[in-house]
Every structure is written in C-alpha cells, then in structure tokens.
C-alpha cells in the first residue's frame, strides 16, 4: 500500500494570505506518499489551485511548511528552479509555448534546465509523444492541435523532465467533452504505473478509478482528507455531501 511509503509531498499547517484581510489557505495539512494518487476537489474559489501552486513554489505562502522529497521549500538554501524541474505541472489551459513546435516545447527545459543534448532531449520527447499518441504531430505548432491533443503534449512535456511527482490543476476543465477521455486515459495509465500525483479535478470517475485518497476543500480549508472509498460512501461533512450531490447529478 502506498501509505507505507515515505511522504513525497508534505504540507504542515500551511496558511496563505493574498491580502492581510483575505486568507486563501487556512492551516492546510496533508501529505502525499510516493506512488500515491490524491484527488483534490471542492467548489470554485476554495483555494485548490493556490494549494497546488504552493507545492512547487509558484505561489509564496506565509505560514507552515511544505516539503517535497524531504526538501523544505522555505529553506533559503533551496534551489527552487531545480526543485520545480523535478515536479511536473499540468495546467487547465495547457500553457504550451505557441511559438515553438511540439518537439521544441518538449526539448526546451530538458536542454536549458537539465543540460541534456538536443539528441537526448529529442529521443526522450519523441518516446513520450508516441506514448500519448501524438508522434505524427511532432513538427506542428500548438495552435494546430485540438485542446485534448495540446493537453496530452503538455503532459508529455512535464514527463520529459523525469519528475518525481506530477501536479494537475483541472487538466480537463477547459476541454470539450469528447476530448476529456483521451486526456484522462493518459492520466489513468500514469497513475497505474505508480506516478505520485496530486490532481485537482471534478472528474469523479477518474477519482473512483485511480485515486487512493480524496481531499475536499472549501473556503481555503481542507474539510475532508480520506481514503477514496470512505469519501464516496460516507462523506462526513454536509459541505462535501452537498458538493458531491451537485457534481454527481450531471
């Protein structure tokens, strides 16, 4: 079971304020073990994106500690670019670089951050493109691909860095319904291979299929943090029940 593994991502009493009056994260504590898949859900504006961005230091936080693979993000000695390069991140709006071909999108950080040669980077990139079923599109530009294809490239781009964990922020919310499956399929495969994943999503089908745990957030607080089966069979809080009834009703 993943829970016997050491923690890959550890959050302890993390609080964040955007302004002195507005606390977006309140005392958030949780952890993700190696090989574990954790789904984060909750109403819009509850702080899910902010939480996940804190994990690879894309957003600063004012209190608490976050450790990734044992490294404390707030430690002044921590090399943040290096740490971020080891954590893959997938965004709602893909964020491929529009002026670069798919191959160049895949190679850029491998070369500039990891110092790989163009050949090494290309070999890696092409293997991952094949894996997400897009080898034939290697020389295209992002704008020439559908949303689902772009998101699969974005996943491949993150995987090209050999990440120790992957963060997803609503990876399918910007997609037309017919493209959601192709992206979820890639994610399911990744989960089954043992990738450590923290996934913000409302796709409860995905959660049921591969998640080990589900975190429910509301108003910046972690309200529930439970094993998947427990969460779906008997959510404790009224807020989680209400939320589930809303998103499962359609």
């Amino acid at each position: 079971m993943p829970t016997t593994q050491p923690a890959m991502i550890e959050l302890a009493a993390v609080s964040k304020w955007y302004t002195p009056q507005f606390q977006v994260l309140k005392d958030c504590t949780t952890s993700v073990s190696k090989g574990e898949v954790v789904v984060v859900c909750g109403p819009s504006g509850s702080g899910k994106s902010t939480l996940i961005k804190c994990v690879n230091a894309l957003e600063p936080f004012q209190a608490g500690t976050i450790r990734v693979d044992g490294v404390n993000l707030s430690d002044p000695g921590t090399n943040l670019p290096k740490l971020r390069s080891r954590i893959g991140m997938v965004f709602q709006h893909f964020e491929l670089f529009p002026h670069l071909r798919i191959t160049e999108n895949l190679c850029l950080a491998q070369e500039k951050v990891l110092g790989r040669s163009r050949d090494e980077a290309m070999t890696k990139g092409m293997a991952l493109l094949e894996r997400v079923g897009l080898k034939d599109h290697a020389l295209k530009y992002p704008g020439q691909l559908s949303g689902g294809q772009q998101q699969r490239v974005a996943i491949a781009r993150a995987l090209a860095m050999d990440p120790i964990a992957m963060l997803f922020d609503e990876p399918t919310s910007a997609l037309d319904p017919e493209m959601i499956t192709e992206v979820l399929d890639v994610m399911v495969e990744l989960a089954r291979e043992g990738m450590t994943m923290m996934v913000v999503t409302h796709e409860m089908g995905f959660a049921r299929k591969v998640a080990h745990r589900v975190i429910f957030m509301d108003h910046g607080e972690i309200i529930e943090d439970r094993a998947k089966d427990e969460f779906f069979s008997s959510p404790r809080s009224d807020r989680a029940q209400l939320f589930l009834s809303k998103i499962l009703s359609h």
Partner: protein
Amino acid sequence: MNYNWNWGIFWEMNPEGSGTYLTLLLMGLRWTLATAALAAIIALTFGAIVGVIRTLPARWAVLAGDAWVEFFRNIPLLVQLFLWYFVVPELLPKAAGLWLKTLPNSSFWTGAIGIGLFMSSRVAEQVKAGIRSLPRGQAMAGTALGLTTAQTYRYVILPMAFRIILPPLTSELLNTVKNTSVALTIGLMELTARTRAMQEYSFQVFEAFTAATLIYLALNASLTFLMRRLEKAVAVPGYVAGK
C-alpha cells in the same frame, strides 16, 4: 505667384563643391539613415530592457523603469536634444565637457543617442503592454519547468511579446526616422537640413522640398514593407491572439 520652376536643378552643381544638388540631398539622406539606424538600435535595446524591468516582481525595479519612461516621454524631443548638446557638456567636469564638444560628428552622436533614448520610452511601453497581454500561465509554465526568470523571459515571454507588438513597433520605427529631422537644430546636416541648404543656395524651394518629401515617403514605405515581411516571416502557424 512668380516662380521659376527648374526641375533640372538637381543636376546642377551645388556651391559647396560636393557635387550636384542631388548629391547634397543624398549626403543628407546618409546622415538621416545613420542617425535613424543607431537611434532605432538604442531605442530597441533600452526599450526592451526597461519594458521587461517594469514587469518584474521587484518593486524598486518597476519604479526605476517607470521613472525612465516618464523622464524620456514627458520632455519634448527638441528640449532633450538641447539638454544633451548644450547643457550636459557644461555640467560635466571641464575636461570631459571639452572632449564632448570637440568630438568629431558630435551632433550625430548626440542626435542618435538623444532620439534613441526618447524613443526607448515608447518602445518600453509597447514591450510592457506586449508582455502583459500574454496569459499569466505562460510565465508560470516556464517557471514550473524549472526555467529561471531570465530563461522564462528569453525563451517563453519575449518571443511572443515581440511578435504581438511588431505592428506598433513599426510605427515607432517610422517615428524614429521622422524624428531625425529634429537633430538639424543641433547642427546635424541630415536630409531636412540639406534640403533647407539647397533652398537657400538655389531659391528652388518647391523642388527641394518635393524631393525631400518623396525621399522620406520612399524610405518609410520601404521600412513598412520590410516590417510586414518580417511579421509574415515570424507569424506563428495556428496561433490566434487572445486564445
């Protein structure tokens, strides 16, 4: 109006002994081109740096960038050229001031640098607007991949920002060319200055200024054409702005 038209004037010798009147104008055009080219390079270099600085998270950097833009944008170009040419050398230590005043082609250097700095404030505005027009997620994606801030600007932000601002940059380039004529006030013998010289030597004011008008028009039309070609050459396949 009693005016003796003489379109053949361009092939007559000018009294400076430098050849025909046409040669006189073309010598002016050379200074116009040289001044515009150096000013454009300065404007683009400083405009890019200051524009980027104004989008950084550091507050002091933004303030410094804003100050640069406000200084060079709010003082008339003519006054700025006078400042650099007549006032600054007096404020410097005696030796340095003397060196500046006796520098060969000092009106060219002062004109090109002055116009370049003036235009850099406008380029900085465009660069900042271009960067701001990109989705915030782009920089975040670069950062998340482990790129440093400098790398993110270099490989992710600026290539797109510059593509987006190419059309307004074209206007600024044309403005740079036109503004070189202001440098005649500090003694630069560029196209407009030579045109006035021709008028004074020959009294053929209409021919002289018709020629100058056509030369400026042709120059800026060519630049516009080249910039359009550049826009096409760097256009990103499949990219729809604002998507």
